[in-house]
């Protein structure tokens, strides 16, 4: 099975949960920006959570399906339709052979995920199908998708087939399931969101004013933000005195402070190491919120303890496990 890219949208790539174990060779982890949306999309179509799907950016693609295909649209609401019929976000949907998926020009958030039963089956590079554009590997030839690209799909598993069977109805272009992902697992509004930050190694090195501003002021996501990192404008932060640091590993969500005083949140395609002061790390459960912020959106930060952040992570983990069990019962 395959799918066809009719129009590519602004920047649509193949992404999964990224590369594990290669950062010591300098290879970035990469992978989906909104990991929760990717996982939930995959669960809704009966895939493994880490299967590869399409990640859109602001303006989504048009996709042609040559065979009947089970899909789910998660993440930012892009007003997705199939031959004019709306596809409700976070619902599995069975698309008839020959139909075309379109995204509207309006998007609430930044990144929409289109998960497909069987997953996008491009060859893995360093154990992942994620596209890493900077070094030109992974996904579809290491680049964003173009019109005319034909992507191979994996064989849908037994669960995907049961979900598809439960939706099949003769002659319909689109059948959207009556069930959907729980609200707790859906994308939240990013603009004006409060993002929780676990205090980092050099937070105490900020001057008193800057420390207060970090947790009170409004930061604006700058236009020069991408899959590698988000630059935050609007507030300048300063250290009490300059710090000379040795480069060390950074993670998804590290907030670092370059000399210009504008913090940067490192995202999926971050470099493996960094030498700027680390003010903190975004709580894992809040990374999807940051991933859905678009240039111009406002973010505020609140401190969270490691214990609280891990508690929230374990709750999210349990909610996903619950969803997995509930979906596995479909069509039995």
């Amino acid at each position, binding site marked *: 099975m395959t799918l066809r890219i009719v129009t590519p949208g602004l920047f649509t790539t193949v992404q999964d949960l990224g590369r*594990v*174990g*290669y*950062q*010591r*060779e*300098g*290879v*970035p982890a990469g992978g989906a920006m909104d990991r929760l949306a990717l996982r939930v999309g995959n669960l809704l179509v009966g895939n493994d959570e880490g299967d590869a799907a399409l990640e859109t950016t602001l303006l989504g693609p048009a996709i042609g399906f040559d065979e009947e295909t089970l899909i789910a649209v998660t993440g930012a609401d892009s007003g997705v339709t199939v031959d004019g019929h709306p596809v409700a976000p976070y619902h599995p949907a069975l698309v008839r052979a020959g139909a075309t998926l379109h995204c509207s020009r309006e998007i609430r958030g930044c990144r929409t995920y289109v998960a497909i039963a069987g997953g996008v089956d491009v060859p893995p*590079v*360093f154990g992942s199908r994620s596209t890493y554009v*900077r*070094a030109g*590997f992974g996904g579809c030839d290491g680049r964003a998708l173009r019109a005319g690209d034909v992507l191979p799909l994996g064989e849908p598993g037994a669960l995907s087939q049961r979900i598809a069977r439960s939706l099949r109805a003769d002659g319909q272009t689109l059948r959207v399931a009556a069930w959907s992902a729980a609200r707790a697992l859906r994308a939240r509004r990013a603009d004006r969101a409060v993002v929780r930050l*676990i*205090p*980092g*190694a050099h937070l105490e090195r900020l001057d008193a004013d800057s420390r207060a501003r970090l947790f009170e002021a409004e930061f604006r996501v700058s236009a020069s933000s991408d899959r590698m990192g988000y630059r935050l404008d609007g507030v300048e932060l300063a250290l009490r005195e300059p710090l000379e640091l*040795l*480069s*060390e*590993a950074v*993670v*998804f*969500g*590290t907030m670092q402070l370059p000399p210009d005083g504008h913090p940067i949140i490192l995202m999926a395609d971050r*470099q*493996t*190491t960094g030498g700027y002061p680390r003010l903190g*790390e*975004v*709580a*894992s459960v809040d990374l999807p919120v940051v991933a859905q912020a678009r240039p111009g959106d406002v973010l505020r930060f609140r*401190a969270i*303890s*490691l*214990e*609280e*952040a*891990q508690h929230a*992570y*374990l709750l999210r*983990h349990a909610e996903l496990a619950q969803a997995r069990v509930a979906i596995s019962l479909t069509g039995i």
Partner: protein
Amino acid sequence: MAATMSCELASRQSGFTGVWRGTPGRSNFSAMHFAPLGDRALLITLGHTIDDSTRRTVQAALQRLDGADIPGITELVPAFASIAVHYDPAVLAEHAAAPPYTRLVSSLEGALADLADDDLPPARLVEIPVCYGGDLGPDLGDVAARHELSADEVIALHTAAEYRVHMIGFMPGFAYLGGLPEAIVTPRRDTPRTAVPAGSVGIGGAQTGIYPLVSPGGWHLIGRTPLRMFDVSRKPAALLATGDRVRFRRVGEDEFHALAS
């Protein structure tokens, strides 16, 4: 660090642990420090300087942790003087009374007890052919002029030294090399280039290195190697690894092109 979970550890031993006894033949390593790096990773700091003994400590600790079977660890990322330990809190939370961070730190302390760098494998010596100057090294003349040396003298200094890979990072396969002769230490360019060709050999401050991939860069480019420093289809993809000894060998343009093809 105000994180609640580190408090117990902090109050017990001020966050520092694993004191290494001053046995002769061992490095001057004295303490390791654990700190959270977000909610799914922690950082073990093993030193504060870029030097051979710190590098050996990091390598010995990495070798030890690679061999230890500690549940929940997903990835280890070494740097100049530290190792990041990525983990899944959900795995560490299973059947455990202690919080994931505390539990992992005590496993790591156990695994790293009595750390010694005696059993590190001998370092490889990797020779890198470089065609210096001309179009392949457009800043060679600038570097020479800045130090009142001839281009040949810069090349002689650069090829005479033996370098050491202190860490891999920044981009796929990029090796941070220590050992640049003082006489050719050169501050970075005022204006970085937007696209430095792959294989470019540069000097940036006290460091020298090779750009594995096309990338923006602010180092002075003195030459280029025909070797592929990073190759997705190779295993391992990176030509250099931490701990490698490195020497540069001057080659002419003919040999450069012969090796490149």
